[in-house]
């Protein structure tokens, strides 16, 4: 009996223990499978799956005629997985022969604690082939995108460049990085017990979308002409730097933007100072080219007419205790001649009748002191004084292009407004965004910013500017045979940092103009900074303008219209 009771007792205890165990297991299951199901499933996924990022190819950049200016190619890159490399020293020595790299540095990388190390990126394809024939454990080759700029230094300041991971760092590469880059894809792979990729899970592949292509307003041939002529002038005059901008005045489309000194975006590790796009980021005192703005204001306000006579004071005139000089001693001259001879005294006397508020209004209306909103990086506003800070001499100084800082782009756009019947356009450099299959995704149209002057004033000023390149004007070397050119020279003294005054030796020589004068297709600005051999805008910059303009009109097929040119009818 006792024995039977004991057995029953043991059975009950065992049953209770088993039941309790079962309940605990059930509770744990409920805890894992119901309460924390989602969180744990994700954790398991992370342990068994590996997510690889797949880069989409970067879009290409081409000029208005489809000429490639930047393109991305897949090139091999070599990586190492140190934990799979049994003999780092021997591997490093063999690798160094193929990669032409330092064996000790390679060895150090292969001895690191990391799972993955880059050994050399963006190799020449033939080197990668040599590497694969070595079949080294723990060493692999994968394709990566590398940016190529087939035209070398050409347009480098506008194009910019990117880093080794294909992120845009400068220029259009930076400004349009999100467009060019495309979207990264994702590949989820199963991992084996060692963490290696086993088999792609087809359903978990998100394909990368390739970057979009940019089509520029730039004309490769005009850009080349501008760069060649600018480089020649900067070298010949031993100048510090130079800028040329060619723009379509009626649309604001930039046809060329050249700079010296320059750099090769394929190897941009040189002086970062060279990367700066001086056309939009450097403000300078424009000198006499700015007389056009003061003249436009005076004509628009009907303070003067082109044939009104102004006395030139024989080359000396006192303004607020400062003597203003002219290069030549002028007597009586018309207002048109004031501009054509670039008379400081004539301009100063005219703006004496213009209220400072009015002059400030026109400066602002022509777009100075504000960004042009061009689609480039690094643009500056220039330097304009607040009206409250104007001294009694400021109005006269501004009339001569002093006490104001403008960017080359601001100036050429203001002159383009004169060429365009008074309409100020927004400059732009990207005309289209296209998909990788060539479909147009976005097209950028010309944008009118405002109208600072009437068409009558623009026309009168154009006529005056035509005279500046004719005999008697300061810009005769800017004349292009066969075409009516409207232009203006500028020779500005730079400020001397030591004295605070104007330097007698450091100058900025410039010429700005457009052609054909009565139906302008091109507006061109040439700025040469600190030329050493000579310094007049009319002798340094005007000939550069002339050579660029002459070749550009020929390239564009713009038929000559003056008697000097020839018009033939093809029968």
């Amino acid at each position, binding site marked *: 009996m006792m024995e039977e009771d004991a057995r029953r007792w043991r059975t009950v205890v065992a049953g209770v223990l088993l039941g309790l165990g079962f309940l605990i297991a059930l509770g744990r299951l409920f805890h894992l499978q119901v309460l924390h199901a989602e969180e744990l499933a994700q954790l398991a996924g992370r342990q068994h799956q590996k997510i690889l990022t797949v880069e989409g190819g970067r879009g290409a950049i081409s000029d208005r005629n489809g*000429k*490639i*200016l930047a*393109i*991305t*190619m*897949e090139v091999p890159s070599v990586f190492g997985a140190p934990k799979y490399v049994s003999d780092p020293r021997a591997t490093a020595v063999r690798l160094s022969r193929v990669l032409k790299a330092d064996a000790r540095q390679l060895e150090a990388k292969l001895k690191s604690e990391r799972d993955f190390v880059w050994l050399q990126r963006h190799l020449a394809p033939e080197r990668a082939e040599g590497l694969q024939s070595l079949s080294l454990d723990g060493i692999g080759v994968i394709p990566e995108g590398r940016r*190529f700029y*087939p*035209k*070398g230094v*050409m347009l480098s300041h506008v194009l910019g460049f990117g880093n080794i991971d294909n992120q845009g760092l400068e220029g259009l590469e930076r400004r349009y990085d999100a467009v060019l880059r495309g979207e990264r894809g994702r590949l989820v792979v199963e991992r084996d017990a060692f963490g290696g990729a086993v088999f792609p899970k087809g359903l978990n592949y998100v394909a990368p979308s390739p970057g979009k292509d940019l089509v520029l307003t730039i004309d*490769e*041939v005009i850009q*080349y002409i501008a760069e*060649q002529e600018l480089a020649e002038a900067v070298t010949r005059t031993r100048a510090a730097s130079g800028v040329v901008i060619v723009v379509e005045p009626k649309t604001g489309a930039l046809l060329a933007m050249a700079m010296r000194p320059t750099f090769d975006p394929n190897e941009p590790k040189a002086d970062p100072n060279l990367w700066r796009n001086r056309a939009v980021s450097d403000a300078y005192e424009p000198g006499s080219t700015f007389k056009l703005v003061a003249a436009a204001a005076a004509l628009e306000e009907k303070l003067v007419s082109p044939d009104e006579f102004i006395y030139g004071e024989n080359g000396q005139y006192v303004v607020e205790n400062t003597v203003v000089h002219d290069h030549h001693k002028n007597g009586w001259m018309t207002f048109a001649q004031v501009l054509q001879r670039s008379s400081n005294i004539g301009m100063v006397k005219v703006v004496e009748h213009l209220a400072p508020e009015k002059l400030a209004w026109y400066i602002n209306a022509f777009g100075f002191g504000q960004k042009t909103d061009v689609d480039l990086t690094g643009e500056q506003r220039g330097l304009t004084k607040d009206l409250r800070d104007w001294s009694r001499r400021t109005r006269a100084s501004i009339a001569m292009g002093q006490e104001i800082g403008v960017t080359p782009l601001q100036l050429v756009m203001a002159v383009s407004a004169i060429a365009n019947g008074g309409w100020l356009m927004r400059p732009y450099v990207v005309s289209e965004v296209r998909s990788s299959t060539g479909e147009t995704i976005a097209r950028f149209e010309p944008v009118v910013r405002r109208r600072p002057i009437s068409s009558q004033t623009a026309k009168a000023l154009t006529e005056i500017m035509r005279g500046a390149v004719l005999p008697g004007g300061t810009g005769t070397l800017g004349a292009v*045979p*066969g*075409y*009516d050119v409207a232009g203006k020279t500028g020779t500005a003294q730079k400020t001397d940092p030591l004295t605070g005054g104007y330097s007698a030796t450091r100058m900025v020589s410039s010429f700005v103009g457009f*052609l*054909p004068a*009565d*139906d*302008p*297709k091109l507006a061109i600005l040439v700025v040469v900074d600190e030329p050493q051999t000579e310094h007049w805008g009319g002798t340094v910059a005007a000939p550069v303008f002339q050579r660029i303009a*002459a070749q550009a009109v*020929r*390239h*564009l*097929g*713009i*038929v*000559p*219209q003056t008697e000097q*040119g*020839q*018009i*033939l*009818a*093809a029968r």
Partner: protein
Amino acid sequence: MKFLAGTVLLALALGAVWEKMDIYRTGYAIEELQARKKQVQQEQKTLQLEFARLTAPDQIERVAVSRLGMMRPRYDQVVLVQNGSPPSRTEPAGRVVPASHTQ
């Protein structure tokens, strides 16, 4: 009856295996074609890059001057020819003609 059932089962099994094999074969063919496509695309890009380099204006000028003995023409050596009748005096000047009509 048993024999018939066995044959049907075997045929079904073979069919399933065949189908599976076919999927694998097609999969390999797709993979091969994708690899080929990628290779051709890469070749195309290489050629585009080469073309862009060779047609760069500085390259053309270098070849024209150094190998072909050519030089830039002077103004008076270039005549722009307008297709059709000459413009009347009232017609706006400076019209653009296609580059193919120039020389």
